[in-house]
């Protein structure tokens, strides 16, 4: 019934992005097919529509909806109501990247091939990156843990707990309250105050080329 996303290594964000793109493509393809052939199955697009969200993968994204949906009149194409996806503007993301580059040389660091360098050299660079990143996080976000308990301690989740803020895994059976041990305390951005951008500012320049005269 439930597919546990935690089983997928969380570091493979590129893979996720690829999967999402693939899913989106499939969706388009399916819609096209649905238009052409009237008897195409209507259930299929619904399943793959969700992963197309631009948000990070959420558990519900791949939850397959069982066959309660097949509609006898597939002629009305808009009936498989597409999941509403929020468009995020790239400006905020570009701005954050720009800040991370400016303070922490983040883009420089990630774009560099570290394979040939000694750990000591990488370590030195990481100091710059770490110091700068933490400065950016401190300055523009108010980060706080979702749960204040110590990691490893036992806690009980009441009925109606916020499933977006706390993700349960493992032996999920019966009804809440659930009792389990805290693996990761979570992070919540309590407050975000990114700097404002001037109208007409080109945020896609993450770092300008520098020329010394």
């Amino acid at each position, binding site marked *: 019934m439930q597919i546990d996303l935690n089983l997928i290594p969380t570091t493979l964000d590129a893979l996720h992005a690829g999967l999402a793109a693939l899913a989106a493509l499939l969706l388009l393809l399916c819609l096209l097919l649905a238009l052409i052939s009237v008897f195409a199955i209507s259930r299929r697009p619904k399943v793959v529509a969700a992963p197309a969200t631009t948000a990070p993968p959420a558990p519900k994204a791949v939850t397959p909806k069982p066959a309660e949906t097949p509609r006898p009149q597939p002629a009305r194409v808009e009936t498989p109501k597409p999941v509403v996806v929020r468009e995020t503007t790239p400006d905020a993301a570009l701005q954050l990247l720009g800040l991370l580059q400016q303070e922490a040389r983040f883009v420089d660091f990630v774009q560099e091939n570290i394979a040939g360098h000694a750990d000591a050299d990488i370590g030195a660079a990481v100091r710059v990156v770490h110091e700068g990143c933490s400065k950016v996080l401190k300055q523009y976000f108010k980060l706080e843990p979702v749960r204040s308990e110590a990691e490893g301690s036992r806690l009980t989740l009441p009925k109606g707990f916020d499933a977006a803020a706390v993700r349960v895994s493992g032996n999920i059976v019966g009804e809440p309250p659930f009792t389990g041990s805290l693996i990761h305390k979570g992070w919540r951005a309590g407050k975000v105050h990114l700097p404002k*951008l*001037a109208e007409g500012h080109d945020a896609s320049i993450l770092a300008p080329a520098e020329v010394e005269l």
Partner: protein
Amino acid sequence: MSGPRYSVGIDLGTTNSVVSYVDLNEVDGEHAPLEVLDIPQLTSPGVIGEQKQLPSFMYQAHEAELAKSDIVLPWDDTPDAIVGELARQLGAKTPIRLVASAKSWLSHAGVDRRSALLPPQSPEEVPRVSPLEASMAYLQHLRDAWDLQFPEDPLENQDLVITVPASFDPAARELTVEAAQTIGLRQAVLLEEPQSALYSWIQSSEGGWREQVKPGEVILVVDIGGGTTDLSLIAVTEEDGNLVLNRVAIGDHILLGGDNMDLALAYALRAKLQAEGKRLEPWQLQALTHACRDAKENLLIEGAPAEVAIVVPSRGSSLIGGALRTSLTREEVNRALVNGFFPKVELTEKLVVQARTGLATVGLPYAQDARITVHLAAFLSRQLGATGELAGFSPPVNARFLHPSAVLLNGGVFKSDVLAHRLLEVLNHWLDADGAPAARMLEGADLDLAVSRGAAFYGYVRKGRGVRIRGGTAAAYYVGVESTLPAVPGFEPPLEALCIAPFGMEEGTEADLPPYEFGVVVGEPVHFRFFASTVRREDVVGTRLDWWNEDELAELPEIEVVLSAEQRRPGDIVPVHLAARVTEVGTLQLEAVAKEGGQRWKVEFDVRAGEETDAPVAP
């Protein structure tokens, strides 16, 4: 309009400016909910961020340097110059276009503070501004930031206090007020920064300060900013069962601060790198200075690591290859800062004064001796008699210096508790040698924001609701008098100093007219030599000194009066008295008062001001 809603305090600093405020309706005695204003400013081209501090820098960008659309502010889409964080950043890479330390220039008696001389040593085509204009630009930015956040309560309608170093001379104080008035802040009053720090301490104790100090105590305030060190002594007395605070002495203007310390560390590291055969480019030294600032704070706390790695990455996009790596050890910090700036010295240690050699260009008169403890020793020794006139103070007969019993520190430098403890240790060593009890630290001050917070609180105190530090002027003022009656400068007969304003004149008071009169030629500027003394407390108006110790009187820039030719014929000689008063704002004002008729003319402090009006002085 039912009077101001807020009391606003502006700390117009050498390197950073801060605005604090308090809603006057919310204040209850010493419980005041003080807030610090978030100041919108360009943090990089086209990006407007909010910070608690406005870096006091101004950058004159080349017209091709930045896109027009990238230099905007919420209240102005074509600002004249860039002020704040972006100015600091750009200026670090292009110093020829950066105006920095305007405040130090504003108090530099050796230059015309109204003339466009900043940035010094920049090419002709870079627009220059005067120290006064730079101060105005910072104040204007702060005003606009305020008005943006409080459109209903514009700054010009609020109570406003601007802080200045205690050691600012009358001209620098007047210029600060002028800067505020020119941009429409006519109600601004001045407060000395060390006093402001003490107000902040009083406020943050929420009444508890009365248990922490007793009558008969002397509080030493040491305020080390980015560029200046400011010293004050405040004596605690009792009147009708209430504690009274009296500011009894201030120190000299010492251009020495936290920035010097970061630079000292960077130089130490550069020497270390050079010993390893690495040569540093100027930009690397700059980055090193920046890195040292953060590293210092980590190394100068209790339980600090033995060393902190310092990495200066290359300027190119390759981060890993070209980085310059070194480490700053606790040992090095101790040597450069603790022993360099706060050495353990005896009270009798003298300040080192080197003869300046061939200074070709105009520069700031930086302190030549970086040893803050020696400056402190000189100050306390000189102010031995500071509490002489107060009841309840009986300095021991053999005292070699004024004995403080408590110390209040201010300034980001003292986030390093090692430095704070060292300062106290040295002071207590001197006290011990005099057989006096050790001084203690007054805790609970906010080192970065105290000055602006104290200023906002002072705006409230001024309404008569809370303890107010008494003090008045911290110096007596004198004009030079020559033996012949009409003052004709240009030759040097034996000089006498005539006291025209005694020590400790309260705000809003006027000194008596000195009995001595000067003959002044109508229509021509007449100059007087002008002196101040922070130690001669007994001189009254009219006292004439024909001899004084070299360190008793300090010469200030000449003052000037021009008797306008209205009602008089040019060339006539009019006998006048020189009268002094201290305005409500906190500035000293001198006037020439005609002996007959009582007509008054303002005496200007900054004689070199406005070249076009500066007529040649008669030989």
